[in-house]
């Protein structure tokens, strides 16, 4: 945080215990690491271009996560909250579309890769 910062917007994603009413036991995250990192940098660069933000943090875990654990954290500091809120929302929304990370949900009756099949 810097002296010019008037606010920090933090989004903390957590593993939910159910999807569409089905009980989730755990999640397994896989990343195509080099490309995931490069896509994250692109997202941050676009956010810096579009909003007067000061600092951006994008953090994503891989591997096995239990319900309640934290796979992703986004933090954005800015002089004013509008920029921080908008940039933070943009970053997490775009991450979910372009960053090559996949999650496999484990249910009682088996595992499913999210969003893979129509």
């Amino acid at each position: 945080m810097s002296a010019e910062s008037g606010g920090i917007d933090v989004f903390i994603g957590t593993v939910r215990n159910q999807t569409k009413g089905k009980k989730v036991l755990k999640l397994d995250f896989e990343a195509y690491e080099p490309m995931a990192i490069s896509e994250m940098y692109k997202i941050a660069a676009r956010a810096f271009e579009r909003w007067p933000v000061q600092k951006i943090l994008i953090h994503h875990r891989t591997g096995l996560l239990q319900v309640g654990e934290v796979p992703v954290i986004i933090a954005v500091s800015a002089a004013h909250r509008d920029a921080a809120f908008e940039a933070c929302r943009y970053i997490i929304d775009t991450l979910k579309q372009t960053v090559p990370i996949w999650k496999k949900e484990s249910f009682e009756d088996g595992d499913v890769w999210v969003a893979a099949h129509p």
Partner: protein
Amino acid sequence: MKINVLAFGVAKDIFGSGEVSLEMSNDATIYNLKYLLEQQYPRLKQLSSYMVAVNNEYALPGDTIHERDEVAIIPPVSGG
């Protein structure tokens, strides 16, 4: 030319491996690659969609592939 193709997520399950290799003509495009893969792995066609990355960048169907390119199949992402 021989092309190694990395696979992640559901594509890895479909290929049964995180990497497969293909023999392709020297002027092969992403479109040709997809066609060849879908011949060998028909389940690929059941995915809602999938992208191809070349050297860590999303590629377009018309892009050509070169022997030392790092090619990866990118099923629908679900990070966050």
